[in-house]
């Protein structure tokens, strides 16, 4: 699953993610991050079974963590099921079902936002 970690000015001062990895022994993959001097966020991919352990290990001052859900908002009314988003997305969030209807698997999304930018019908948006 995907975890969204957000840091405030205290949180960015300390190697929180590294510490949590060492403390819990859980491997995580940082898929997207934006961190500067006084705030930041990181999107982590972690095995479902290890998520709770990692969340516990990371809970510290200046750090908030939540499970990233429903990152892609798909407006069914505007969508015409053209499928352009399918090959643009590098994380295979989008696919067709057997009736050529678009299926969205938000779990895989790393919030790059490309699908929202290039959807011809403006039917997709990303919720961080």
């Amino acid at each position: 699953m995907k975890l969204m970690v957000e840091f405030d000015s205290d949180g960015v001062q300390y190697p929180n993610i590294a510490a949590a990895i060492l403390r819990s022994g859980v491997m995580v993959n940082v898929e997207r991050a934006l961190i500067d001097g006084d705030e930041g966020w990181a999107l982590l991919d972690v095995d479902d079974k290890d998520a709770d352990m990692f969340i516990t290990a990371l809970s510290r001052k200046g750090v908030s963590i939540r499970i990233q859900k429903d990152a892609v908002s798909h407006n069914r009314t505007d969508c015409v099921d053209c499928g352009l988003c399918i090959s643009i997305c590098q994380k295979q969030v989008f696919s067709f079902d057997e009736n050529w209807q678009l299926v969205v698997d938000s779990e895989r999304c790393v919030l790059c936002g490309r699908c929202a930018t290039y959807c011809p019908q403006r039917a997709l948006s990303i919720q961080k």
Partner: protein
Amino acid sequence: MYKSIDEINERIRDGSVRVVSAEEMPNIVDELGVTGALRDVDVVTTGTFGAMCSSGAFLNFGHSEIPIRMEKMWLNNVEAYAGIAAVDCFIGATQESTTRHSEYGGAHVIEDLIAGKSVELHARAKGTDCYPRTSITNEFTLQELNQAIMLNPRNSYQSYNAATNMSDQAIKTYMGFLLPSHRNITYSGAGCLSPLANDPTLSVIGSGTPIFIGGANGVVVGEGTQSSPGAGFGTLMTSGNMKEMSSDYIRAATMTGYGVTMYVGVGIPIPLLNEEIVRHTAVRDEDLKTNIVDYGTPFRDRPVIREVTYAQLKSGSVEIDGEEVRCSPLSSYKKAREVAAELKTRIETGSFTMALATRPIDSHKINKPMAEKGYVCHVNEMMVSTFVTITGEESVKEAAKRLLKGETNHLPVIDSENRLIGIVTTYDVSKAFAKDEQDMSVSEIMTKNVITIAPDAPVDFAARTLQQHNIGALVVIDSSRHILGMLNSYDLGDLVGGRGRR
């Protein structure tokens, strides 16, 4: 055996007509044979739903009290062509708003009207004795117009090239967003469900053929613009009454970085009159071939990467250079099926009857490119043919000397066969000196990805290339990467000053 259009219409009237979609036809022909299928099936419905840029509508507003002869006109800030009589216009799908640019255009105006929304009209005129008014601003809805006739110059391509991008920069095209280094493929068209794919010889479809367009019962006007059926790229000019259309089948869209387009649902019923027609409608995606072309080159004749069938495209991945590349459509197959199904329902319920075309369309025609007769200034007229080069093995210090001697800021790097392999600039050399790296070899500091241009490219294209990459010079090379000259940005200043103009 053959069947007449009157027999088919008689069956539509008495409710006994048998209609199937083009998707079902191959299996029916396999099962019953061509003659059996002709006996059993009366009409095959086709459908497509994709981006059709060459679309628009004629609107008539009626005369205002104190009439005006509208000469310039905007609908929701999208300019419409007003050079047709006093209160008529043509709104083109791709025309963009003066305020919202590519987020709103002619296609959106059309979709808004069809959805029942009110649209603002603003028009200007010089004023005449018979039409004294000089401006008008008003709101109108579709129902208030006398006529709203959709007339699409080029719809329903028989097939279309699939697109990929072999360059190392992502590009924004009318085929969607193409990732660098052929990491995706996009394609358009409904394959075996596509209208012209089921009548490639245009033996049924012609002027006057009744069609489904945007939800209305419309008509084929005739040959579409740029139609090239002799090369497998036929198109149709279509028309229908906008007042009978629905936004289920007409959708405005924006291809980001390219502009506005309109998704149109077109369905054409094919009456099965003889065995040849039946054979054509039995086409499968496996039989329909197109080319994947490289949109990463700016030229008209884009290189063909490989041939591909619609079956391969629809599978979701296609092999290029031994790699599986993900591919996806930009036309909607689900909607194309809905078009074919809706058309089938209309025929079965008697609200849509068949007719023979009144004029055939030339099925051998091949489209010609533009022959530029006007004066175009090419790169080879503006480039500098005296230039200095260096090899990759030589030192940075040598590069510095060469730059000074050549009085230039750009030094192309060549291999032993004089082919371009990189470039170093005064900036690169200064940086190396500042870091005490003057004894390094040129190949260690050079930029390998050189922005080049062909000698026969128009200079305005060269100017755009310089601007896009934010660089000061382009290396002019031939097809074997031998350097022919350098094109410096300051040389293009001469264009304004006189050289290269007439």
